[in-house]
């Protein structure tokens, strides 16, 4: 760190500290204090009201016996895996293809990203309409002369979760495209020249040199998407509201429902604390990895 960055001019430093005070307050009491409070409540027998009666891991034991929670977790894993994979593949392919000196590049980019600007509620509602079995795509194809065509995933217990994958990928692949393309464009032009002199075919250049070089950006995109997976709520509410049955229930919805509808605070905080731990399991190693990388660069 640059030595000259440390100033010892008291009044200015005091003003700076004062300016940061509200933020420090929020971090300390809302982020850390709030998460800690919720974690603490999860070890009590609280239901409608908070009762400071500690029961150890009872709420967690109850939680993991709850079929709806089990389904929610399972859905989160299925959704997370499919959504992240689909968005990565589509987003990276789009970025690489756009990078081939195509005409109308900015038009394509604008098209691939606009969905990212819309609300999850909008995304959920429009896909629910398109996938509606009685009037949506299934109906259109049947009218085209394929009367036995079936595409009713949204009302199918087994397949409904994948309709949410489709909608979420439509919303989020553009983000991967933007992050990847920014990474590709940031690669030194002389690396490309070296690849041409070495006679490396285009696809091998991307696969073995360019994409590994920008893997930091891609990992960042994956972390961001993982956060989105854990937070997944709005799309489900708009698209299926957890149904059919409980086929598309997700953990974040479990927390909100138990907190505000079923008024089971202990169970809700146990669920939300579990989510927090899951997030930390992803974010902390990533943050450490980033720090180590930045140290190595410096």
């Amino acid at each position, binding site marked *: 760190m640059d030595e*000259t*960055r440390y*100033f010892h001019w008291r009044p*200015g*430093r005091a003003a*700076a500290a004062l*300016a*940061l005070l*509200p*933020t420090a307050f*929020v*971090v300390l009491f*809302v*982020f850390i204090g*709030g998460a800690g409070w*919720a974690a603490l409540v999860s070890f009590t027998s609280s239901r409608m009201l908070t009762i400071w009666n500690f029961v150890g891991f009872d709420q967690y034991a109850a939680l993991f016996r709850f079929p709806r929670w089990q389904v929610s977790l399972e859905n989160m894993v299925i959704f997370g895996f499919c959504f992240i994979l689909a968005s990565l593949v*589509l987003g990276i*392919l*789009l970025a690489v293809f*756009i990078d*081939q000196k195509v005409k109308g590049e*900015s038009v394509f980019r604008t*098209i*691939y990203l*606009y969905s*990212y*600007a*819309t*609300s*999850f*509620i*909008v995304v959920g*509602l*429009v896909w629910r*309409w*398109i996938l509606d079995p009685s*009037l*949506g*795509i299934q*109906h259109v194809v049947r*009218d085209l002369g394929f009367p036995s065509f079936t595409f009713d995933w949204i009302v199918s217990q087994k397949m409904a979760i994948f309709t949410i994958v489709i909608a979420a990928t*439509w919303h989020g692949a553009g*983000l991967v495209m933007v*992050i990847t393309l920014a990474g590709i464009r940031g690669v030194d032009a002389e690396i490309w020249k070296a690849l041409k002199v070495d006679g490396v075919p285009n696809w091998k250049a991307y696969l073995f040199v360019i994409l590994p070089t920008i893997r930091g*950006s891609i990992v*960042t995109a994956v972390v961001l998407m993982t956060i989105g997976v854990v937070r997944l*709520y*709005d799309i489900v*509410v*708009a698209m299926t*509201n957890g149904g059919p049955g409980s086929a598309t229930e997700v953990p*974040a919805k479990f*927390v*909100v429902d138990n*907190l*505000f509808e079923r008024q089971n605070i202990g169970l809700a905080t146990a669920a*939300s604390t579990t989510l*927090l731990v899951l*997030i930390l399991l992803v*974010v902390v190693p990533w943050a450490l990895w980033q720090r180590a990388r930045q140290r190595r660069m410096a």
Partner: protein
Amino acid sequence: MTARQMVPDGPRPTAFGPARLGIYGFLVVSAVFFLMPLYVMIVTSLKPMEEIRHGALFAWPANPTLAPWIEAWSSACTGLKCEGLKVGFANSVFITVPSAVLAITIGMVNGYALSLWRLRWSSLLFGALLMGAFIPYQVLFFPLVRMLAAIGFFGNLAGIVTVQVIFSLPVMTLLFRNYYASLPYDLFKAARVDGAGFWRTWRSVMLPLSGPMIVVALILKVTNTWNDYVLGLVFAGHRYLPMTVELNNIVNTTHGEREYNMEMAATLLTALVPLAIYFVSGRWFVRGIAAGAVKG
């Protein structure tokens, strides 16, 4: 002509080969996938229910009508009341404007204090703030509801604005911290040598340079707040439900035959503000998500 082809001279002849065709093919098919929902929304919102019942999802409306749009805006039912989306629209404006102004101002000052002043605890504070960005909202719902209720901020405009500002503090701070750190540090030193203090340096030197980042932050914050659903649902109270919540209520409280055309008009209306920002700002929008994402 054949002689000229025998001797390579000048630019390499380019052929529009199958590879190029494949590239454009993939890009165009993808573009169709991305555009299709927007197209379906638009045509559905312009059709009378009659046409929709016949089920040509992709067909252009034979008798285009604006009636669904008018209904969605002014008379669709959101639960018990039937005043359309205009109430939600106004609420979203009431929520978005103060949240954006507050969040950007605080983010700016935070970024400035963290990047240029280097207090003893600043890197720790910044690290903790960034971790805050990763906390799922749901974790903080219970404690936040209790805290806000204690000071009378639960279920009203002040409550939802406070929550919106709190949850965007990390990203706003990050944006401005990185931006100020990218400016030449000598500028800051020069102001200090000239005897300017903390606030004076910010107001006279840093603020005038912050224009581009303010635009980026504004785009990011307005879009995010406008698109929020769950915070509005939990913290805004019945009087200030934002447009996204009202939209979901319209669609999910329908009894009898569902008016798909009105639903799609309502959906489009809700998407209109962020889409307008996106199509007008273009590169700035991309800059915002790139700046928020890559380092985030």
